[in-house]
């Protein structure tokens, strides 16, 4: 450090150069977040206080009228209920199936890579293509009911009765994306130290007990993280609903994002659509906060 002895230190010290580089490195991301996330978030609120008529091209301040409408909207309770059922169903089915598949793939079996590849393959199939095929299969006289009928079973009208329609959209989404969670679980399972199992075996613990006492706690951070991602992802589901049920029958599969799209872009109620956006934001924020708290409680298992 010869420059310490010099009388005048250069302005661009290493630390300063580094800081400048740091700002330069994050600049594209930060400017992007400000432009495409933070400013729009402010604007959502601004628009939610206005009504914009596209055809007549008028933009008027309406105060809290859109929020009043939100409170009185008879469709909102069923829409929120549908969103909750969809998200809960999706997370439960997705996580349990992913875990089951990961445990199966963790076995010493020949040709396991082939199975892994096939279970994962829907992840890379175009979402809309995947959904279209399922919509084709789920028609009243479509492939699934055709096959059921071969075995003498009268299949339900999948997309036309509220319960089966909800099951259908959940199941289509699960099979599409469960491979992702499966791979993450598999990586977590393979990261569990083998010694733990050996010790347990010496103690005579059953397979099931080993799984419950060792595996589950050891992979719980992964479970939590994937569940956060799955829940937030489930609130964003749109294409599946638009293609499979268009929100029907009734409003039984109209989730919040789909309702928002209908109001803003089909009915041209941009103001009310923005109000629904605010609601969606609040829901995501609350859910993330809750999950963050849970993360703190199990922080013990994180390394």
């Amino acid at each position, binding site marked *: 450090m010869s420059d310490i002895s010099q009388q005048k230190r250069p302005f661009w010290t290493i630390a300063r150069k580094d800081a400048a580089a740091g700002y330069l490195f994050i600049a594209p991301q930060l400017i992007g977040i400000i432009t495409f996330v933070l400013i729009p978030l402010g604007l959502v609120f601004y628009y939610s206080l206005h009504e914009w008529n596209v*055809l007549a091209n008028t933009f008027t301040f309406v105060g809290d009228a859109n929020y009043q409408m939100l409170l009185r909207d008879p469709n909102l309770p069923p829409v929120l209920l549908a969103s909750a059922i969809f998200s809960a169903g999706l997370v439960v089915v997705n996580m349990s199936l992913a875990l089951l598949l990961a445990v199966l793939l963790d076995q010493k079996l020949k040709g396991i890579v082939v199975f892994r590849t096939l279970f994962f393959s829907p992840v890379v199939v175009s979402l809309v293509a995947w959904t279209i095929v399922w919509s084709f299969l789920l028609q*009243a006289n479509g492939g699934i009911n055709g096959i059921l009928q071969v075995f003498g079973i009268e299949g339900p009208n999948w*997309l*036309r009765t509220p319960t089966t329609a909800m099951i259908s959209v959940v199941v289509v989404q699960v099979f599409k994306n469960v491979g992702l969670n499966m791979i993450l679980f598999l990586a977590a399972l393979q990261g569990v130290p083998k010694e733990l199992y050996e010790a347990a075996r010496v103690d005579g613990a059953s397979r099931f007990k080993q799984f419950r006492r060792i595996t589950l706690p050891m992979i719980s951070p992964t479970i939590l993280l994937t569940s956060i991602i799955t829940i937030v992802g489930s609130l964003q589901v749109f294409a599946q609903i638009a293609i499979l049920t268009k929100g029907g*029958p*009734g*409003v039984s599969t109209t989730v919040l994002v789909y309702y928002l799209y209908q109001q803003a872009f089909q*009915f*041209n109620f941009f103001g009310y659509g923005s109000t629904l956006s605010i609601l969606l934001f609040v829901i995501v924020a609350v859910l993330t906060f809750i999950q963050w708290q849970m993360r703190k409680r199990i922080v013990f298992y994180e390394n």
Partner: protein
Amino acid sequence: MSRLSALKATAATAGILLPLAWGGVSWAQDAVNLRMTIWSANEAHLALFNEIADGFKQTHPNVTVTFEPLPYDNYVTTLTTQIAGGNPPDLAWIFETSAADFVNSGALAPLTDAFTNTEGYDLADVTDAASALWTKDGTLYAYPFSTSPFAVFVNNDLVSEAGAKTPAEMIEAGEWTWDNALATAKAVADNGKEGLVIRDFNFQTWQNLTAFWRGWGANAWSEDGKTCTFTAQPMVDAMTRLHRAIFVDGALPGPGENVDFFAGDAAMTITQISRASLLPKEDPFDWDLVPLPEGPAGKYSVIGQAAIGAFANRPNTDVAVEFLGYMTNPENSQKLAQFFPPARASLLNAETLSTTNPLLTPEQIEAVVVNGITNGQVISGHTNFAQIQQTVRASLDALWVPDADVTAVLQSVCDSVGPLLAR
């Protein structure tokens, strides 16, 4: 620069630029590109439109017209996106159901004066019944180029195989009623094929049921559009009958069942005559085209309309209106009539129409097209139709199950859509 010299400079610049700007206007007129959004991707349709556009070019060498087919399902949404995006087309096809939204919004240019001043246009030839929906305060805002009656296509082969009388025979005997038509449909369904398909209804697009329920004198809402009439007796009767036909008799395929009349899977289908182009060319079946059956409320016919409007306050609005006047003048209307039944009284006769519709016999044209257009009522639309359509669709979904309570469902339709109509 001092204030004075700045002023001088400005004045000088203006002196140079203003004449240029004026010149620019006339240059701008030199090349005009008009864009018309349409929802048909049919090649024969496009060929005809291009032919008409070329004809316009003879007298207006500076004008080119492009036709932009948008997907049918999302047509209105996509068109509104273009408008909202500050990029509306110059001209657009408009569904009858969204007529009110467009005509009332002030988005469309008035047409009456321009058309009256066009030589040989003869606006009076366009029937009032056809233009009513597109007129506000005596001014026409969109031209109804397609006034297409709903009719019944019949697969006589399937009907005969089931041992039933063909609709033509029933008409002959004066027995062409909804009861008999549904009985025939049931007979064919019992025989292993499907009975009657209300095309494009798909248990979603309920406005297409108008072709059915008008037979009972039913309507979705009152004349002024303010009151829901789904709970009125005619509608209850019509829907009860329809529900029985679907879920008890199996005369119509149920929800989610894909049945295509034109592939030979069903005995009859209700649709507009322009679908004749879908009839199979290879190993065709013996088909017929007949008017809608008589309902308890008597004879009736229902029309689906499509119109073309020109957007107001666009750089080329005047040219667009002029082109629209050319496209729908008597000669071109006659050309369009081979696909789109015309709204002009002078074209509404079997001789004229049979020259342009080689698929149909003069009798079919007389019975279905001419009578249909003359007496038909247009499907009702409403302002904010997208929302109303969706709201009714959601409530009506409960009807499409075997054990539905028809009266209760229709009550729920009015409960949910009533406030929207009254608005």
